[in-house]
């Protein structure tokens, strides 16, 4: 059954509490926080071998992926539509969208999860393989996108920045920019 925003108990130890910016309660993974420094709350998931993050404000809920109805003649990364609490939303596979080769091919019967993203104009679901984690980190831990990335790939400016947490790099996506309506119009006709 879908659960509204996985509580930390469902997820591995790195998962933090749900409240946005619970400033100063020493549980932060990045324990060396300076007092009063603004925090970013991310939902972190894996695509291919890398970790990606989406700001929690852009995530409406996390649920076990429901039944998806395929929608013929839409781009491959559109997996179809699903009924999530009465809303019919498009389900995307970001690995296919970004051309990332998946780390391990589908294990049959294994659960996947869907992040429901509510952006300015649309809602989409993003399928991920592992339980997404929730993470607080200080703004200073996030670098803006490296400039060469910004320069070459104008279309790729959906990368908002790179966060460094311990030894991990987390690519923070700006979901508002991730899907231009031109792309979805890649219709056969």
């Amino acid at each position, binding site marked *: 059954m879908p659960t509204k925003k996985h509580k930390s108990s469902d997820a591995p130890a790195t998962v933090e509490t749900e409240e946005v910016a619970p400033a100063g309660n020493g549980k932060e993974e990045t324990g060396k926080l300076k007092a009063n420094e603004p925090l970013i709350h991310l939902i972190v998931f894996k695509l291919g071998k890398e970790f990606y993050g989406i700001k929690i404000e852009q995530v409406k809920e996390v649920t076990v992926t429901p*039944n998806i*109805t*395929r*929608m*013929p*003649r*839409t781009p491959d990364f*559109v997996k179809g*539509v*699903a*009924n999530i609490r*009465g*809303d*019919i*939303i*498009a389900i995307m596979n970001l690995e296919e969208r970004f051309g990332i080769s998946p780390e391990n091919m589908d294990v049959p019967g294994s659960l996947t999860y869907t992040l429901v993203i509510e952006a300015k*104009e*649309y*809602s*989409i679901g993003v399928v991920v393989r592992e339980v997404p984690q929730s993470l607080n980190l200080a703004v200073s831990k996030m670098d803006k996108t490296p400039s060469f990335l910004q320069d070459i790939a104008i279309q790729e400016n959906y990368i908002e920045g790179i966060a460094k947490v311990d030894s991990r790099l987390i690519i923070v996506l700006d979901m508002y920019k991730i*899907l231009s*309506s031109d792309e*979805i*119009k890649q*219709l*056969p*006709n």
Partner: protein
Amino acid sequence: MKSREQEYKEIFVAEALEYFDALNRLISDLEKRPQDDQVLAEIFRMLHNLKANAKAIGYLQISDVSHKLETAFSLIRNKELSFSDEVVTVLFEGVDLLGELIHNIDNESYGEPDPVLLRNLDIIVDNLSDSTIELAKVQRYNTSKNLSLSELVYIQIKKLDHLLNLVGELVIDRDRIVSISRELDNSELKSVSSHLNRITEDLQYSIMDARLVSIGSLFNKFPRIVRDIANAEKKEVDMVMEGYDIQIDRNILQIITDSLLHLVRNAITHGIEKPEIRAKKNKPRNGNLSLIARNDRENVLIQLTDDGKGIDLVQVRRAIAERQMLPESAVANLPDSEALSYLFEPGFSLAKQVTEFSGRGVGLDVVKNAVDSIGGRIRIDSEKGKGTTFTLQLPTSIAVKGALLFEVDEIFYAIPLLHTEQVVAIEIDELHEIGGVLVADIFGETTTVVYLNELLNVKEQEMRLGDKSRLKGLVQNIIIVSYNNRKLGIIVDKLYRQQDIVVKPLSKPLDAVDLYGGVTLLGSGKVCLVLDVPAITRYFISRRQVMAGELNI
């Protein structure tokens, strides 16, 4: 169900009472500020409307009293009558009388209005400044006036839209609950769900009903427009309209308003000939234009007919060939109705060669898009020299659509019934491969048929629309759809029932995918894709052209 007449009457009374309340307020204002022209103008406008409305619906007493008051106020406005105490009293009494007449509209025992008061009104109107004639004292009218609020509320269409969306959601959940209760087989749950079923249906139809307006509200605007266009074109046009009382969803009427105006304008400028030319052709000098609305099962038909010069099919065919929309050999064999359908292609009339009816086609694609957008249909019939008829087939309501459910490659689909002609099952031997597509003789008509699985699910490079070996099984279920005067048979894997569905529009970003008109949820909770017949037809045609092109290379 109340009759239309009763409803009109209620609307009239409610409006009249509003005018009455406003008049009372305005006269009191005027008494304090007799020089205020704005207040006077407002009073004048209300009395005038009240007079006209009352006359139209046949309440002559009300229109008579309104007329007298209106005259009195026009004298005041022209400074021919001073707004003196005496006059004010009479006017207040006159307005009170109006109120009383409105309140007693249904009261048969009410009798005649007080003749003394009527006489007083006449006196102030007729005798201007002659103060020698005494105004007779009138028995005070309403010492015990009841305060009452209007029976009518105005509501923004936006709020009705919202209600309709909510009820759509409710219907979907209702279907789910009904289906679950059937599975669980619990008698208590069953009885609750059947009650829920009934009240949801009631609610749905009540809201749909609240959104209905009569087509007359649009038709009433046409006589004037027709007169103006005919004048500008120096043509003489008699217009006949029927079906004012036909009911249709307000938003649907809104969407087709421009289209209908466009068609009417076209009919006068390009259809109906000038009087001299008509005389030469032995036609009456006055062109005839008829605009007729009627109910057709669950739909509304609007027919616009002119007796003008009609459309020259020879020229249409030539234009189709010249614009290379079809090979010349195919154009010759094109049935008339299909040839006419090309008039709806974008930019068709821009062809310079077809000056005869250029302009006829300008914007016809826009008209068709508008009709498509609400799931309606449009067709042209025309005979050269005799005239042209446009027929618009429109749904009465946008909320609920009868649809045919079916399955292709384990996905559920629905096609709105408005676009389906018939359903047939034929054996695979009766399908023939001709020119890269499948063709079958269906009830004596050669119809192009397409396997939906091939069209939707096979990679475009590997698509073989004419390959019978792709079909499964011996007997094929075919849904014949019709779009723009053209028929197409769609082969589906499994055919299910006919069902009323609530179509949910696709939310962004999927709304850009035009093959689907929306989605609906089935009682099982499964998502069902609603196919957009115009888009499917267009996609089929474009694929066919691409494949034909590949063969030629």
